[in-house]
């Protein structure tokens, strides 16, 4: 007997059950999520390696990528707000990299058509470093960088 199914059924009806099903990935598997995690890219230690692991070649510098609500000096490296906007047409994904972290890549965001190529999040920074925004648009890679000074590191113990 399929015990997992029993449990799901037991847990109840309505919204709860729908969310559970969606969480379990049983609901519209195509849409719900193509869950992959690019392990290779997250273990790279340089910009070139990261771009390569994401399937691209050397990125071109672009003035169409801008940082917003990103500080020049971060008081606390454990919480550094980063906002990135890409004005490049057909932006497919935006990645945020911190140069001097043990692994450079912090996050990759996939931007489907209809979603603004602009988002903000918060990252950790071990020390003052350049932060890169890597944008994939129409199959090509572009990047911009910004230096952020950290007065208190976020990776200490």
């Amino acid at each position: 007997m399929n015990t997992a199914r029993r449990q799901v059924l037991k847990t109840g009806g309505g919204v709860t059950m729908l969310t559970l099903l969606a969480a379990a990935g049983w609901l519209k598997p195509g849409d719900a999520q193509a869950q992959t995690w690019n392990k290779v890219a997250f273990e790279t230690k340089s910009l070139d390696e990261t771009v390569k692991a994401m399937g691209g070649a050397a990125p071109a510098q672009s003035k169409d990528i801008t940082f917003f609500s990103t500080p020049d000096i971060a008081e606390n490296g454990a919480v550094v707000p980063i906002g990135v906007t890409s004005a490049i047409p057909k932006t497919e994904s935006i990645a945020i990299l911190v140069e001097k972290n043990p692994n450079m890549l912090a996050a990759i965001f996939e931007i489907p058509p209809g979603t603004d190529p602009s988002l903000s999040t918060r990252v950790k920074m071990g020390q003052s470093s350049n932060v890169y925004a890597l944008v994939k648009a129409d199959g090509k890679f572009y990047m911009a960088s910004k230096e952020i000074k950290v007065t208190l590191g976020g990776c200490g113990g």
Partner: protein
Amino acid sequence: MADPMKIRANVSGDSTEVKVLMNHEMETGQRKDANGATIPAWFIQNVTVTYGGKTVLSAQWGPAVAKNPFLAFKFKGGAKGEKVQITWVDNKGDKRTDEAVIA
């Protein structure tokens, strides 16, 4: 299961702005405890935001995303009263889905 996310979704003009605050340790795997033993990494790896059965944002995260992650973005469309649904999965296989009504 982990604590619920705080989600705010508001219509502004022809798009919907989504702001999420998740509850997660986001342990890097770099830190050591008092005895010098490495604290194992524990972080959210995948985040998916869906609206009307369609994915409006998906993300892959590494351990460098800050503790209790924050995320804000906008997507075109979205109607008041409809729901956005957000799911995360961490590297231990734990997952959580929350939804919010667009205001």
